[in-house]
């Protein structure tokens, strides 16, 4: 049974699937503040999409509400600018109906983790094939500066003039705790790193979550500077690489070692510890992923960036397809006429 949708799916692309980033630019003028970190994300996404070898018409960008959620308007793809907090679940419906599409969600820290938190954790556990990009600027920007679930403890904001008393979420830990199969963190100021992460997310089969630190110049300027600015990042951040030991520091002279269960900074310079004592990153180790995620708000440890976890398990859309196929195979007569008759019917002649 081919539906009208199948016919659309079978339509051939207009031309060869060779794109330049500009092919993903929509005609709408971008209206973020100048200096906003979101600009960088937009341009990295456009670059990465151009390289994925997927026909442009197969992309859909779904967002909620927020500065970040304006993103779909700037992408020359299909898309929905949804309502606040519902991007992930709108995208879930779309992906179930249309597993052929590459569905991307763009969401803010408020949109994804405050009002949208429930949809987020459920999509993660279902392992539905969405790429969720969380633009984490640590603040509600579109509504002019209220506290977000990732605002630093103690920070004053419009809605917490005496300082934030909510302990912030660690989005990476939450994603892992919800069962997300791909979990990564990157930031606005390192285009190459972001491109690598986005490409990996783009190619991941299953739920892919990417937290992106993005600087809001107006309401939370510099919140992530310690971890992202060229001057300080080497000392305060660590870049996770699969199969490599956890080394950081301006001179690559520090590493992370597990002391009991506790990740600890050790010096590689004083001869006491060597590279062999360090944790070696393994994207496929779920327990390690938790340990690394848990480093996040520890002021004594560098902030980890990179891919925390990338594992494979059947996706939701695959499981649906399989279930339908098996059910069909087991049912001798799948005609609607038979369905209508039910268990018990009779005929009057």
């Amino acid at each position, binding site marked *: 049974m081919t539906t009208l949708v199948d016919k659309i799916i079978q339509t051939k692309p207009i031309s060869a699937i060779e794109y330049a980033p500009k092919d993903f630019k929509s005609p709408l003028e971008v209206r973020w503040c100048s200096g906003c970190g979101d600009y960088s994300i937009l341009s990295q996404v456009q670059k990465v999409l151009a390289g994925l070898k997927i026909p442009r018409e197969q992309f859909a960008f779904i967002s909620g509400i927020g500065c970040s959620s304006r993103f779909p308007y700037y992408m020359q793809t299909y898309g929905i600018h949804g309502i606040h907090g519902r991007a992930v679940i709108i995208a879930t*419906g779309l992906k179930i*109906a249309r597993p052929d599409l590459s569905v991307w969600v763009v969401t803010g820290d408020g949109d994804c983790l405050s009002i949208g938190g429930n949809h987020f954790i459920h999509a993660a556990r279902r392992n539905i094939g969405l790429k969720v990009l969380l633009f984490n600027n640590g603040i509600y920007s579109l509504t002019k500066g209220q506290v977000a679930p990732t605002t630093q403890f103690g920070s004053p904001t419009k809605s917490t003039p005496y300082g934030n008393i909510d302990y912030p979420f660690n989005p990476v830990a939450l994603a892992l705790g919800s069962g997300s199969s791909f979990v990564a963190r990157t930031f606005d100021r390192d285009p190459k790193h972001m491109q690598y992460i986005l490409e990996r997310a783009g190619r991941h089969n299953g739920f892919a979550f990417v937290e992106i630190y993005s600087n809001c110049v107006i309401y939370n300027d510099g919140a992530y500077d310690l971890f992202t600015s060229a001057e300080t990042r080497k000392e305060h951040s660590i870049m996770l690489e699969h199969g490599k030991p956890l080394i950081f520091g301006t001179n690559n002279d520090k590493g992370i070692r597990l002391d009991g269960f506790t990740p600890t900074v050790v010096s590689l310079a004083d001869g006491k510890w060597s590279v062999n004592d360090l944790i070696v990153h393994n994207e496929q180790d779920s327990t390690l992923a938790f340990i690394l995620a848990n480093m996040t708000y520890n002021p004594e440890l560098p902030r980890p960036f990179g891919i925390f976890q990338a594992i494979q398990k059947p996706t939701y859309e695959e499981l649906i397809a399989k279930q*339908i196929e098996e059910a069909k195979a087991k049912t001798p007569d799948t005609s609607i006429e038979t369905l209508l008759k*039910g268990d018990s019917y009779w005929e*009057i002649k």
Partner: protein
Amino acid sequence: MERDVIYLEDVTIRFAGDSGDGMQLTGSKFSDTSAFIGADVSTFPDYPSEVRAPEGTLYGVSAYQIHFGSKGVYTPGDKIDVLVAMNPASLKVNLPFLREKGILIVNTANFTEKNLKLAKYETNPLEDGSLKNYQVFKINFNEIVKEILKDSGLSPKQIERTKNIFALGLTYWLFDLPLTETEHWIKKKFGKKPEIAEANLKVLRAGYEFGETNELFAIRYRISTKKLEPGVYRNITGNEAVALALVVAAKKANLPLFLGSYPITPASEILHYIASYKPYGVLHLQAEDEIGGVTSAIGAAYGGALAATSTSGPGLSLKVEGLGLAVILELPLIVVDVQRAGPSTGMPTKMEQSDLFISMFGRHGEAPLPVLAASTPTDCFDMTIEAARIAIKYMTPVILLTDGYLGQSSEEWKIPDLDSIPEIPVEFYTKPDYLPYKRDPITLARSWAIPGYPGLEHRIGGLEKEDVTGVISQDPLNHQRMVELRAEKINRIQQDIPDAELFGSEDADLLIIGWGSTYGSIKAAFDRLTEKGYKLAYVHLKYLNPFPKNLGSIIEKFDKILVPENNLGQLAFILQGKFLKPVISYHKIQGRIFLSSEIENKILEVLNQKGR
């Protein structure tokens, strides 16, 4: 033995017992058989809100009522003619509904001291003379089946559990109904357990023979049947009818079907049925909540599916924001609300019609959408297909109101020939000049382009958008235009729906206007009084927004208008606001449908009133 045979046009029987006594099954089998012989059937399952209440308690009573016959079978019946009571509690709870001189068949096995106490009987009603106004038949079902199956090899517990089948056989005899349908079903159902099948068949026949041979019963009944049109028939509940209609509508539109839903009584069965249709390629998601139910459906609709969401009151309250989004996106979406008694959690297993206001007015901003209502279990099928047709043709969410009574009660249904159901035309836009909010000049619907088609990439969203292009816009005059266009689009549906049908005559003394599940009770009352010579008119509304275009002119013709509703007068208020004509609102809010006698009395009362 020869018996007097009494011929009846219709009769109402109720099986009542403990939750574990299998009354729901017994009732539904009885109703299958009565429909099978060509009777009109209307049923009503009535079970406790507790999952499994302790045995023998009053609140643990489960019952199933069947009204069947050739005439006036619009409701499960006001009063019961025959009550089968399996224990003291079920007798206590159901006796008030048994008509005077009605037949009462009692399973005496359970009238133990303990059970009498649980049922709060001080003395044994079988002995204290309190049942003298009824024809009482005291039978120890348990003893009888024990005897019949003593060599069956079944356990005592298994044997005891067949007692409801004995009751079934006995009532079949009483109404001269054939065993074939039920025999057939037993064989199919217990195909893999032949000893169980055999036992049940044996007990069924024994019940029948008990009637035939026992002296107890001096009278037998025969229900006249209608000559039904040729065709294939079955019984169906409103909830199953909705589920099937969604599949059929998708087929007729040649679209994949998606249901996003969250369980809630009394709508859950729609989700269950749809989930069981996997062999038919149906897609569904049990979302994390009702917000997810509606918004996942919006995503699926954007992708080109026929998208639906099903719920009941509290869930509809949660879908309000999502519905507003669907209105401004102008995507097709079917929302089925199986109304229950509110407000808040209210009485979850009881019916009500109190979600009309929220359906009409329950969104922030100006967000009109079509509202339909089904009037009978089988009408749920037709109105669901109609909801799909309107949703697609007008690119709009549509709310279809049913209720807990329609959803769970059943009636016989002539299974439609698929070819007789019109196609639902869909054309995805595929020309290169796509303008998302360019409208069809007649329907004002925008056209539908879906992801996957090259060159039509576009974004839609909840912000106000420019007419035609759909680009976000804050232009003041554009906003006014768009608000008016969206409203006008819904109004135009009036041109595309059938006129309201007027039963009775235009110069009647009273016009009755009903909607939803009041149909059965009103129609029965209307027919009875009309037959008696009263001059009445009756319109039953299936389209509540917009109203049928002739409704205004009908209303104009009458001085007295009566609007019975299971709410505080919601339709009444809307009619007044729209047509500026006073109506008499008659409400019942007891978690139950109107008795037709209640309507009858109210009509008479109103007719006797001077003025309005």
